[in-house]
Each structure stands twice: as C-alpha cells, then as structure tokens.
C-alpha cells in the first residue's frame, strides 16, 4: 500500500493536537503503521495548527509532505497546504465557513456542515470530532474504534462528555455516509496486524527514564521537551521518584548533580537555550565525576529562534559546551523507539563512567507520534558500575585506576566523600600540583577511551550493502531517509546515533567503501560532516542542508538524491 497522508488544519486552541493523537490511534488500531507530524506556532490561541498522519500497512518511519486527504477548518489550511495535495485527493470543508477554494487542481471537495452539526450538539469545540467522524466514513474506517478511543480519552471527564463526543463523531459519520456514499474509498478499512503502541519521543524518554531507574528529575519547561515533565510529574508517587520544577535550568542541573552525589539516578531535560544555562554545571558534573543524564531537544536556533520547529544545530554545541576538556557521552536517537532504549542506557552509562551523558533529540523526535511494536526493555539490566554503599577504609573518591574509573560512594554512606569543582587529589582535596593535575586529567579522559572500547555501538547501515550513493546522517533524519530509501533501491544510509565517543573506525570503514557520499543534515553548516572530517579525515563535499525549521520529507529527498544517481 502506498503511504496515505491524512491532514487536518485549523486555528490553535481547538484541540488539533489531541485530535491528531486520536487519528493516529485510530489508524494504528485499524491495523496500520503510522507517523504523525505536527506543526504549530509558539502561541496558545490564534495561530495555525496542523497535523499530518501518514499510514500504511508497511512500516512508516517519517513525515510526508504530500497530503491525500485534507480537513480544512479554516482558510489558512487551504492557503498553506493545498499546493501539497496529491492528484484527485479529497478536501473536506464546511461551506458555512465560506472558504475560498481554489479550482483547477483535480481536487474533490466534500462539504460537511461540521460547524452547525457541532453547534446543534451544544459546543463548537466538537467540530474536530464531527470532522473526524465524517473522515472515517469517507475512508471506510470503523467508527467503533474511534468510540473506544473517545471513551479512554474522556474516562475522567465522565459519561456526559463521552456521550457528547460519541454523538459528534456519529453525526459527522452519518452525514458523510448519507450524502457522499459514492466518494468512500477503502483506505482506512480495518485490517489484521500485529500489536503496536503509539508514542512520541518525549514519552519514550520519560519511559526510558522510568525503566532505567531514574529517581530524580529537575526540568524547567521548554519546548520541545516540556512534555517529558508532563508525562513524569503525575507518575512520581506510583513509581517512587521525584520530579522537581526548579527556578531555572542552572538550578535544575545543579539539583540533579546534588541528588546524584547523594546516590539518586538523576536527569534534566531542556532545549538548546536551557542547555546554555546548564553548560557551567555540565562541566561540573564532568569534573566532580557525578553521573547525570541530560536530555536536549533541539529547536530552531539561535536565541529563542523557532521555538516550535526543528533543527540539528546543536551538535557542535553539545560536543564542546563548557570550558576545557572532560569526557562526555553523547547519544542521538533517530526516533522514539531509539530514544527509549538510549535513555535507559544513558543512566547506566552515566553511572558506569561517572560523567554526564547527553541524549540529543529534536522537535521532530520529541513531538511526532509513531507506531512501534510494543517497547521491550527485557534485555536491559541496571548496571551502576563501580559503586559502594559500605564504609571503605581510607576511601579515596578519585583513586587512580587503569580504566579511569574510581569507586563511587554516595554521600551519607559513612565514607568521607568529596565532590570538588577545583582540581583535586585522589581524596578530593583541592590541589594545584602538576603531578596530581596531570594524573586526574588523564584519569578523567581515559574514561572515554574505556567507554569507546566497551560500549560503543557502531552506526547502522540501512539499505543495500553496495549502493550507488551513500547517505550519511544522524539522529532525527533517520525517518525521512528510510522512507526515501523505499523509493530509491540503489541508495543506502549510514545512520549515526552514537556521537561521543565517536565511532571513527566504523564510519571510516563504511565511507571508504562508498561510491558516492552525501551528508544530510538539518543545519546550516553540515556539522556532522565537519565532525566526520575531523575524526576520520574523510571530507564529504556533497551536502543536503536545511535550516528552515521543517524536517526533511521523503518527497524532497527523493528529488535531491535522484539528481545524484
């Protein structure tokens, strides 16, 4: 089945985001794999909100631009998206809104009075639900599946709310069946499939943290990672951890460091701007060898930038933030599933290497909903590395060792434990002596070599082994490139999700074999390309770069890559 993209757009404040999740669930429960991408401005009311759910029987990994069915709840939806409609596709609107509908394109307009139907049911806010009901009818979906979703969504609000939403969906459904029965296409027809779950990257990170034994999190709200705290905060009692909203990001990371010093698995989550405030304590964690996990969700930058849009502009920032040098581990999951596994792993890595670990994601991974086989953590085991809770004679927090890792004892265990931001000796006392400085610096940096030897997971090569063209990318571009590969069988894709320590050998090995290479990134200067050159000596001359806040879409990549074949 060709991927089918359903889209709905309207002004902010009408619950388009929750409708998008409902539609995604509907597609998943009808037996399809799906991916939902959302666009919205940094406003609560008045701006333009739109979602795109692409679904298919085959796995869908990224967002599509071409729309096959559009629900227009306002003029802006028409103006912005009509140009991306596929031939012969359907546009649902309400003629009472008197939208200016372009003619000429072979589009099929379907007029559903969702405004008056919603009003007759008592609330204009129900119009999304009416529209959804009508869309289900036109796509040959099963309304009962939506009823089930509504029931879960409004369980807390009570029977009356459930009933109203049922009625709204039914009204839309009935109207479409009655007046447009000839337009019905078997697109969303329920079909059998394996069990799936639907999550976005923020949820995946929160789940990864929970599964990974997180005990303390301090998160100051910032798009696109705020949802991590929204997921975590209500779960604290049940899962026995603390979420704290601090006064700022400086406090957040220092609190996390304090909690970790006392023995709690700790994390923070933010975006680039918040991470700017964290950089001083980021290095403090490195210097004091305090394990912490930092989640950084990139958005358009610099400064406040494009708050609700995406970018991969922070790669170099994360790699170099803070003065001087210390070991940092940087992971860059390419989708929610990877984000789940890598967040779990990040907690182990932080403990084992006693240093900060960054999970670098972006708005697309954070906020896009994707269906996956149920997340499976059965292979994961908690590993705290070298740690003791016993009283050790002559305990030395920063004792030298061949792998660079010392025995960690949390404060409160009876040992004299010193965390010291100043250069320190093996006990933690401040010192400026040459030998001690050299020994401690080497010890810290050795941890990264140890980590590279023991942990590093090589980048994955997707597609054929021998290809005409090799695409290189990291993190979030995975989805769009994988979708592109479906159409270009002569292209393969080297996806990096482990950035520091850098997998130089395997990247070099793959790239030396490649016939032609193109680097694909969501930033202005091709930061990964630079990093690859630095680490492997291989200079990739060809780049496809984008920094307009929008993700890559397979439609544009197919065009770009085809030029190179």
């Amino acid at each position, binding site marked *: 089945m060709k991927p089918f993209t359903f889209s709905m757009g309207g002004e902010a404040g009408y619950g388009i985001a929750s409708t998008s999740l409902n539609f995604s669930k509907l597609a998943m429960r009808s037996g399809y794999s799906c991916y939902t991408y959302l666009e919205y401005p940094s406003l609560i009311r008045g701006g333009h909100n739109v979602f795109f759910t692409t679904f298919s029987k085959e796995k869908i990994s990224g967002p599509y631009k071409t729309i096959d069915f559009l629900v227009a709840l306002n003029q802006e939806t028409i103006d912005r998206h009509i140009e991306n409609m596929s031939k012969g596709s359907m546009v649902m609107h309400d003629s009472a809104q008197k939208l200016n509908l372009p003619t000429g394109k072979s589009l099929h307009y379907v007029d559903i009075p969702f405004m008056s139907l919603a009003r007759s049911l008592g609330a204009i806010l129900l119009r999304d639900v009416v529209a959804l009901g009508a869309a289900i009818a036109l796509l040959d979906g099963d309304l009962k599946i939506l009823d089930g979703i509504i029931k879960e969504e409004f369980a807390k609000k009570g029977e009356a709310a459930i009933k109203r939403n049922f009625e709204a969906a039914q009204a839309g459904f009935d109207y479409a069946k009655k007046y447009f029965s000839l337009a019905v296409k078997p697109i969303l027809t329920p079909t059998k499939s394996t069990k799936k779950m639907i999550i976005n990257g923020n949820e995946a990170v929160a789940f990864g943290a929970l599964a990974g034994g997180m*005990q303390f999190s301090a998160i100051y709200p910032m798009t696109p990672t705020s949802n991590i705290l929204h997921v975590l905060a209500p779960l604290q009692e049940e899962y026995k951890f603390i979420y704290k909203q601090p006064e700022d990001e400086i406090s957040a990371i220092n609190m996390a460091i304090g909690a970790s010093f006392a023995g709690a698995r700790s994390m923070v989550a933010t975006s680039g701007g918040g991470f700017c405030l964290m950089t001083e304590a980021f290095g403090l964690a490195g210097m004091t060898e305090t394990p912490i996990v930092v989640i950084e969700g990139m958005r358009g930058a610099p400064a406040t930038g494009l708050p609700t849009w995406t970018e991969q502009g922070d790669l170099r920032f994360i790699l170099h933030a803070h003065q001087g040098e210390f070991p940092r581990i940087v992971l860059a999951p390419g989708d929610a599933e990877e984000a789940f596994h890598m967040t779990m792993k990040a907690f182990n890595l932080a403990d084992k290497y006693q240093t900060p670990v960054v999970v670098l994601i972006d708005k697309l991974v954070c906020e896009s909903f994707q269906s996956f086989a149920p997340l499976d953590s059965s292979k994961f085991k908690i590993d705290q590395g070298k740690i003791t809770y016993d009283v050790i004679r002559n305990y030395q927090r920063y004792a030298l060792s061949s792998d660079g890792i010392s025995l960690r004892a949390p404060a409160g265990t009876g040992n004299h434990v010193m965390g010291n931001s100043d250069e320190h000796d093996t006990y933690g006392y401040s010192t400026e002596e040459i030998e001690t400085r050299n020994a401690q610096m080497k010890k810290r940096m050795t941890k990264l070599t140890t980590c590279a030897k023991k942990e590093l997971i090589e980048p994955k090569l997707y597609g054929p082994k021998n290809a005409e063209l090799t695409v290189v990318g990291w993190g979030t571009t995975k989805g769009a490139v994988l979708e592109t590969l479906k159409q270009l069988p002569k292209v393969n894709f080297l996806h990096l999700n482990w950035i520091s320590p850098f997998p130089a050998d395997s990247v070099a090995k793959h790239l030396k074999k490649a016939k032609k290479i193109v680097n694909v990134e969501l930033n202005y200067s091709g930061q990964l390309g630079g990093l690859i050159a630095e680490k492997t000596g291989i200079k990739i001359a060809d780049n496809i770069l984008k920094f307009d806040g929008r993700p890559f879409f397979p439609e544009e990549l197919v065009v770009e890559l085809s030029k190179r074949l």
Partner: protein
Amino acid sequence: MTKTTEELLTPVNCNWCTGCGNFGIWTAFKKAAVEKGWDNHNTALVAGIGCHGHILNFLNLSSFEGLHGRAIPVASGIKLANHKLNVFVFTGDGDCLSEGGNHFIHAARRNQNITVILHDNAIYGLTTGQTSPRSPKGFVSKSTPFGNIEEPLNPIQLAMAAGATFVARAYEGDIEHLKEIVIRANAHRGFAVIDVLQPCVTFNKLYTHIFYQENIYKLGREHDASKKPAALQKAMEWGLKKIPVGVIYESKAPSYEEQIPLLKSGSLVSNKIKKRDLTKLFSKYV
C-alpha cells in the same frame, strides 16, 4: 558519631589569611558538629566558590564544592535525594546574594530543610577585593574606586521576604553564640539562614573585628522572633551600636520535604535503584 574536633581535621592546612573571620566559623561549626554528632553518615556540606568555600577542605565531612553561586541548588538536590542528612551550605555574600541570588530566594520560598551559613564579609575575598552586594554605599574597593553607588542588600530582610522560616545573625568572633545558632538552625525544620558577620582582614577595612565588637548587640528576651512585623523591624536595623545578633525570626511551617508524600516512608535513596516494569503504563498507549 563525631566525638572530638580532632576527628574533623583533614591533612590540609588552613589557607585563610591570619585573622580572617572564616576561622571563627570553622571553629564554631566543628564544635557544633561534635556536640551534635554530625558525621559522614548523617551530614553533607556544600559550598560555593570564594574564600569561604575552602572550609570544605578543612572538614572531614562529606562535601561538595560546586560552582560560584550554585551551592544552594546542589544542596537542594542532596536534601531531596536524602532528606535524612543534615545539609549545610557555606556561601559568601557574593556567592549567595549576587551570582546565586535567584537560588537563595527560591530555596527560601520552598522552605527546604537546609541550613545556609552566609560568610558575610561585605567584599569579594577570593578575587582580591571588589565590592559585593553587602558593601555599603560609598564603599571604596578595586571595582568601586570612586565609591560604591549602589545600596547594599539586606540578607535578613531578603530571606524573610522570600519565605525563610529561620533567620539569624551572628558574629564569628563569638564562637559559643555562633555554635548555638548553628545548632538551632539545623534543628529548625525548614530553610534556615545565618548571616555571619565575618571580617575580611585583608580587603575590608571598614567591617573589622573591632567594628563588629563595638557595634553589635545581642537580642534579648524582649525580642519575639515569632512575630514577623517586629522581626522585620529588627532586620532593618544596621548602624553604629545598632547591629542586632541572635535569632531574628523563627516560625513554624512544614518544610518542603515534609510535604512530599513519597518521603514519608523513607529517603528517596533508600529505594533501591531498579528497573521498572512499565507494562501497566504501556497499556494506555496501545
């Protein structure tokens, strides 16, 4: 249990200037620790960056010397992770009121059960003598060669306004008095601030030992520390013969930690780190 002050010593020699007010704070703290049995099982110390922060090198108690201005949030984290610990913050007036002012206000507002010992020397010591938020108007220093134009901050008032529930002032030269106040502050359940008048003999030629000895007076029975308006009135007093020392304000309010239901059954870190089963949670996402 710490039994003697000798047990609290470390191999590191004190490096404060001779006559520095930090010695008094160090001595008073050691005495309090011996009296109350503060040790590596039950106590954690945090300091900022400044001359004051060196104190951690001279105490055989678990400690974290963090960043300039950021001692309080580290202490907050320690306390949330293990609220059974006595948590002390040693901070300077630059550290606490300038670089870390935001943290000071918010920790007070949260009423976390932490004791903040503010080494108030009204100068930046470690960076060799610039004006601090405690330096008086007109103060001449390396950064204000023509005299300080700004008004100083009053940490007592600030702490009270922000919601601290125990606010005291002490002079480091009166070791017994300071020790008693440190013990009381730690026993207090909530955010406790002690503004310690700490002469910097090298860079602050105004607020000297003699100056404080001549101008402080101890609050007597007539001062009711539980009455906020009266206490605020006292907090505003500062001048010749008019620097009150003692507990200025003390009130009862639940501490932050007391209000977290999860901590009723034990500290956060008393729960073993373990992988959590999310089957139940995942059922909402299918």
